[in-house]
């Protein structure tokens, strides 16, 4: 037997292989999976297929193909009558809604498979699409694919269809009336007339009595006649996926085997007596004979057949509606799941960021502590060196002079390179010796008079200068040691206070000190930024110092990045009222896109490319969290050249020990 064909189209060989493997696994031997890389090769295949009677229940196309879009391919295939029934699925990671709308409008899209797919999702989709396809186009083949049929979908659809069929009965009857006669004839009456007619023309009208639950006909049995239901009710069922599914009971009709006889096929359904029933069996030959004998029998038979067919047709339409609705519900569920997943991911990122900051804080505090010892040792060593050198100098015959040089070098502010060159030029002019002037300026002797005093009474001018240079360098080194150690100590202090654990609430947070510590840590990043401080009088406030530092850090960091590292950052502080302090950070950057302005504190806010706009993103969300935790507010206003973040904090917090543990 020819296998059914599932066609998959994707430009990526790996995706094609994965689709082939997954679908192959799910559908088994009855199906063959063919993959194509683009629309051209797919359409070439469908042209060849058009001449065969191979069934193509499903076609899956990726939404971006090398030569066109998946939607356009599916729509093109749909235009071919031969493949109208083929269920068309778009495989997409990021579907374009306009295109999908267009395809749905033309009924050429039956499903969406999100990329990457899960086996479960793929199976659910294939089952329902394949079930739909076979019911519509090849119900006789359903038994070849028992494992694939979406049993619950069918079962639900059928019972819903049954209910629907009853409610549409009146319309049906109106239809029949116009078709058959102008008298409204109820179903019962038509059926009674049919039975009476058969009784009058058939030679053998023996009834068969069948008790409830007994099978009358099995699916696949050859049918050589019809059985007219005189009393009772039957149900039409079919074995699907190892389960007996009821297709019809009330809508079964009065003529059993009609469909099989009309299509000259074996029985499609199992027919079982639902109640105790009485049937009148009529062989095909007898029926032929009866029809010849009684023209009215034909009319009655046709009426019953039309009613039956109309019921089936309505049932089919209803089922289609039902399936469409289910598919829509599935799509909605999928979207909801995707949204939920996105939110979870963002929340997770937020938690990780928060946790990272807490860990970093502890680490920094620890390192700061460790650094204090070596810094203290350096600072002490500088003092010891200085004392030792001074006592050595004191023993030298030139003691006071050397001592003075040492002091000068230690206390002097280093000359700028420009000043040094200028002084060197002046001294060269005065002394007429460039290399001597160079030497002298290096050790702080910048005038001819100073030079005279320095060499006064020296036995050797050179030896004196050498010695002075030595002491000058000693002094310079001591000064540099001390100032460098001071810088390290200040950085350590800032780091420690910056990282002061968020758990502890302080009642004396000095906002200005907190801002300054943060600014100090930015160091090089602020070199090309003109930082203007417009500080008002602020009272100390209650708060978590480490967390507040984090707010300033994020705001300054955003400003610096927005200005692309050069511009003006203005920090204003004031008190809007007695109980609040206000900090404004104003940068001269290009401003935030107005479309994005209301989303800058949003956890989900990233630009399309997944890049975070100006580094906004988690940082600002964290700022907002912290400010809210302090019962404060944070707002942003932005225009090109002026973006202002305003943080307002209450001066007093309601003490709640648990609050701090959250960060």
């Amino acid at each position, binding site marked *: 037997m020819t296998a059914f064909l599932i066609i998959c189209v994707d430009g990526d060989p790996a995706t094609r292989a994965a689709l082939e493997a997954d679908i192959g696994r799910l559908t088994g031997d009855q199906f063959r999976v063919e993959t194509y890389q683009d629309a051209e090769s797919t359409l070439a295949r469908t042209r060849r297929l058009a001449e065969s009677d191979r069934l193509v229940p499903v076609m899956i196309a990726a939404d971006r193909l090398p030569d066109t879009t998946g939607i356009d391919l599916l729509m093109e295939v749909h235009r071919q009558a031969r493949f109208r029934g083929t269920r068309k699925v778009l495989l997409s990671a990021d579907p374009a809604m306009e295109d999908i709308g267009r395809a749905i409008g033309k009924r050429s899209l039956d499903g969406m498979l999100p990329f990457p797919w899960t086996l479960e999702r793929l199976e659910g989709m294939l089952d329902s699409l394949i079930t739909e396809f076979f019911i519509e186009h090849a119900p006789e083949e359903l038994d070849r694919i028992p494992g694939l049929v979406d049993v619950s979908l069918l079962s639900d659809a059928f019972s819903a269809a049954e209910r629907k069929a009853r409610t549409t009965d009146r319309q049906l009857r109106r239809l029949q009336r116009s078709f058959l006669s102008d008298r409204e004839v109820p179903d019962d009456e038509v059926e009674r007339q049919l039975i009476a007619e058969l009784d009058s023309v058939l030679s053998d009208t023996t009834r068969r009595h069948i008790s409830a639950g007994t099978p009358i006909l099995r699916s696949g049995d050859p049918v050589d006649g019809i059985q007219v239901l005189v009393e009772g009710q039957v149900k039409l069922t079919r074995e699907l996926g190892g389960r007996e599914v009821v297709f019809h009971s009330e809508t079964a009709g009065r003529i059993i085997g009609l469909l099989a006889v009309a299509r000259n096929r074996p029985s499609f359904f199992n027919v079982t007596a639902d109640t105790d029933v009485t049937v009148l069996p009529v062989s095909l030959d007898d029926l032929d004979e009866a029809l010849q004998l009684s023209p009215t029998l034909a009319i009655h038979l046709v009426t019953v057949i039309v009613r039956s067919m109309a019921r089936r047709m309505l049932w089919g339409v209803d089922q289609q509606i039902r399936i469409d609705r289910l598919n829509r519900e599935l799509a909605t569920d999928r979207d909801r799941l995707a949204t939920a997943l996105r939110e979870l991911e963002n929340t997770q990122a937020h938690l990780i960021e928060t946790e990272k900051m807490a860990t970093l804080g502890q680490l920094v505090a620890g390192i700061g502590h460790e650094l204090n010892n070596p810094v203290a040792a350096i600072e002490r060593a500088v003092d010891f060196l200085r004392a030792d050198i001074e006592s050595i100098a004191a023993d030298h015959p030139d003691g006071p002079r050397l001592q003075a040089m040492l002091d000068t070098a230690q206390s002097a502010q280093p000359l700028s390179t420009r000043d040094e060159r200028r002084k060197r030029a002046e001294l060269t002019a005065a002394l007429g010796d460039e290399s001597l002037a160079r030497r002298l300026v290096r050790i702080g002797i910048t005038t001819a008079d100073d030079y005279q005093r320095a060499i006064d009474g020296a036995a050797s001018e050179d030896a004196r200068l050498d010695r002075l240079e030595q002491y000058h360098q000693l002094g310079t*080194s001591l000064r*540099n040691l001390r100032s460098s150690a001071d810088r390290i100590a200040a950085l350590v202090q800032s780091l420690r206070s910056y990282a002061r654990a968020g758990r502890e609430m302080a009642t004396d947070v000095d906002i200005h000190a907190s801002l300054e510590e943060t600014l100090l840590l930015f160091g090089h990043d602020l070199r090309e930024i003109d930082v203007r401080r417009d500080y008002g009088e602020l009272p100390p406030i209650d708060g978590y110092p480490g967390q507040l530092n984090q707010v300033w850090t994020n705001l300054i960091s955003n400003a610096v990045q927005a200005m692309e590292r050069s511009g003006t950052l203005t920090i204003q502080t004031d008190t809007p009222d007695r109980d609040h302090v206000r900090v404004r950070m104003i940068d001269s950057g290009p401003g935030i896109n107005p479309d994005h302005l209301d989303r800058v504190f949003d956890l989900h806010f990233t630009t399309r490319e997944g890049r975070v706009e100006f580094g906004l993103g988690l940082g600002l969300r964290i700022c907002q969290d912290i400010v809210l935790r302090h019962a404060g507010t944070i707002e942003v206003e932005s225009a090109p050249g002026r973006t202002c973040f305003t943080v307002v904090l209450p001066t007093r917090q309601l003490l709640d020990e648990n609050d701090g543990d959250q960060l």
Partner: protein
Amino acid sequence: MNRIVILVIEDEPEVREAIARDLQSFTGHFQVELAEDVQDARTVMDEVTTGGDRVGLALCDHLLPGERGVDYLVELNEEAATRSIRKVLITGQAGLEDTIRAVNEADLDHYVAKPWTVENLHDVVRGQLTDFVIDNEDDLLPYVSVLDGARLMAAIAERGFDR
């Protein structure tokens, strides 16, 4: 006068002084000039050229106020008159991108990471100046004692054979 100048560009006085002191052993044969930013370095460059001297080695910090070190080195590499200057970046913080730019566009000759050791700094400066004098000087003998003597002697021998 026709002296070869080592130009040091570094904005922090402590660091600048430390580099200057570490380079003292070269001052017999080379002149060390200090600049605190790129603008200042241009002034020094002009003064050196006006005085008939030339810069042989630029030792440049990257993070400077105003223009950045790498940009200045790129600029030196674009001018015909300054292209032959050996270029060394001495920095504690240059990102990958800046470093790539320095190597690709400034034809950076060496990279010294802070904190440096005096041995390393001496090796780098000696090597770079040796390259510079071999490429630019007719008489290499005066530099044999202070630069890489072996390479200079080899270069002298080679030149002898050429003639």
